[in-house]
């Protein structure tokens, strides 16, 4: 929190400190994660936590290795649902955000419905999902879409509505059409916030796929968790959860990285005291 150093670093520091900092940055998350895992392992060992309550990381990892042929296809199924649901959900979310941003009447009409769609517990209406979308991949995708689109709507609408009016005026002065104003000003301006919504969305997409699988599935990590629980196979359950977490974090990091790529002008981190 050494604020006094913030933003000082514009003219660059010496290469060596930069390199050291870079290394620390690169390995810190891994180190911290390792520490967490070790703490967990020790807690389980020292407190004699029973495996069926909370398996030790070592047990989970061994199980992942051993049950890999079983876990892999289920992981791929869930990954597929997650990605399809995320793609459709972010698209729908963004389109709704457009409607909301361009019309306060639509905002007033749509927002209650959108929020309502969130407040309905998806599992509680599972039979409807199955009735409407059958047993295939679609009910899972629909649940995922329902979870994903909401944060995208809220953040994108916020971003699209917060454009500097002078920039809009500039384009209006040459009679730019709404599409040009959108593509040249609104969209790039809103991009960071759209990306924030997508980051929330991708994390929720994983949960959506799992919940979708609980509605009715016979494969996927969500189903595997349900099955493992019925078998009191807590280790398998946690192995599946671990893979879910891996999917979630990897996809999140990917979305984040793509976000940084498409907003190169936002590189300046004004808050960072250097380490």
């Amino acid at each position, binding site marked *: 929190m050494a604020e006094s150093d913030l933003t000082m670093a514009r003219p660059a520091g010496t290469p060596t400190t930069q390199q050291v900092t870079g290394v620390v940055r690169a390995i810190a998350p891994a180190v911290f994660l390792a520490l967490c895992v070790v703490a967990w392992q020790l807690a389980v060992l020292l407190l004699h936590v029973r495996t069926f309550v909370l398996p030790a990381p070592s047990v989970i990892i061994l199980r992942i290795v051993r*049950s890999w042929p*079983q876990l892999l296809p289920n992981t791929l199924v869930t990954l597929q649902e997650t990605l399809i649901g995320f793609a459709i959900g972010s698209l729908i979310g963004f389109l709704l955000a457009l409607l909301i941003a361009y019309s306060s009447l639509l905002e007033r009409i749509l927002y209650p419905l959108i929020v309502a769609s969130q407040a309905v517990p998806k599992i509680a209406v599972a*039979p409807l999902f199955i009735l409407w979308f059958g047993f295939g991949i679609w009910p899972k995708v629909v649940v995922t879409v329902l979870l994903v689109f909401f944060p995208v709507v809220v953040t994108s609408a916020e971003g699209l509505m917060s454009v500097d009016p002078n920039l809009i005026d500039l384009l209006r002065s040459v009679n730019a059409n709404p599409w040009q104003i959108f593509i040249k000003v609104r969209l790039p301006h809103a991009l960071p916030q759209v990306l924030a919504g997508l980051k929330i969305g991708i994390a929720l997409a994983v949960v959506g796929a799992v919940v979708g699988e609980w509605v009715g599935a016979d*494969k*996927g990590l969500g189903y595997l968790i349900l*099955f493992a629980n019925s*078998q009191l196979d807590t280790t398998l359950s946690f192995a599946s959860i671990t893979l879910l977490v891996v999917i979630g974090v990897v996809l999140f990091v990917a979305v984040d990285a793509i976000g940084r790529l498409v907003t190169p002008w936002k590189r300046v981190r004004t808050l960072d005291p250097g380490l």
Partner: protein
Amino acid sequence: GASGGSPASNTTSSSSSCGTPVRFTVRLNYVLDDEQVPYFYALDKGWYRQACLDPQFQASTGSTSTVQLVGNGSADMGVADTVAVLNGLAQGIDLQAFGVVYQHNPTALLIRKSVLTPEQQAETKPSKDILYGKTYGAVISGSPFIFYKAFVKEQNLDASRIRQVNISPPGFTEMATGKVDFIATFYQVAPVLEGLGVPLKIFKLEDYGQKAYGLSYFSTPKWIASHGEVIKKFLAVTKRAIDYTNQHPDEGVRTLCTYNQSICANDTSFKTNVEEFKLYVPLYPNLTPSKPMFCINSTTWKATARLLLDAGVVSSLPDLSNSFTNRFISGC
């Protein structure tokens, strides 16, 4: 998916005898477990094919969902707790049962011995008021919850003296960690729980006079009316499979895994040995090839329906006149 057919290549030749087999979906009562081995066994042996049947077995999230989905036509027939089927009937869902899988009340209260006094532990048929002051872990989405509530009513227990908390199925962890003192469930799972180091006292509700059916086969009257032959053959083949499973329990796991590769890449996925299928054997009426299986007795049927009334799930009994039929089972 969890449905049969495709891997049974060794049996396709026999299907030629009847042209295209009849395809229909069978929604099971829960995720796959040892108790469902016979269906997959029959698939594996090609017995359904030989009977010109192509059943698609679906795992489920519980009897209630099975009843709803069969009721609205999303699945053709179902396997569900009889109370759930009767409850569906009471809620206006058009359903008819055509066979009972488990003829006996499978529900028991499993109490942790450690919360009982040595005397209570020693009793063969414990007095029911030992439940007072204990915490009941209720899985309210399951039928045992209804059995339990009816039991409380039938035995005139003071429900306010038993603490009730809801837990997610199966509730074993909560038992093992001492968060709850007893649960209501099928007593077949008791060995699993004891295997976790939780010594149990088992109250079989049947021992206290609670007569009721367990799982039954059902569908909508409409489907039943147009699929009489299918049902007849399905029941016959399934009975054969149950008999066979009883005699060759060790083959079961492999079979389950063949048909359910998503959950079962190796045999250890099913934690319990299929030997435990034997635990379900007492629930079956006749495990001899010569005698009929699945017969529905109207007295027990009504007793099962009464549970709903006793448990306060319904305020009046539904009309049971067309609620079941034995016409697809010869010899009932």
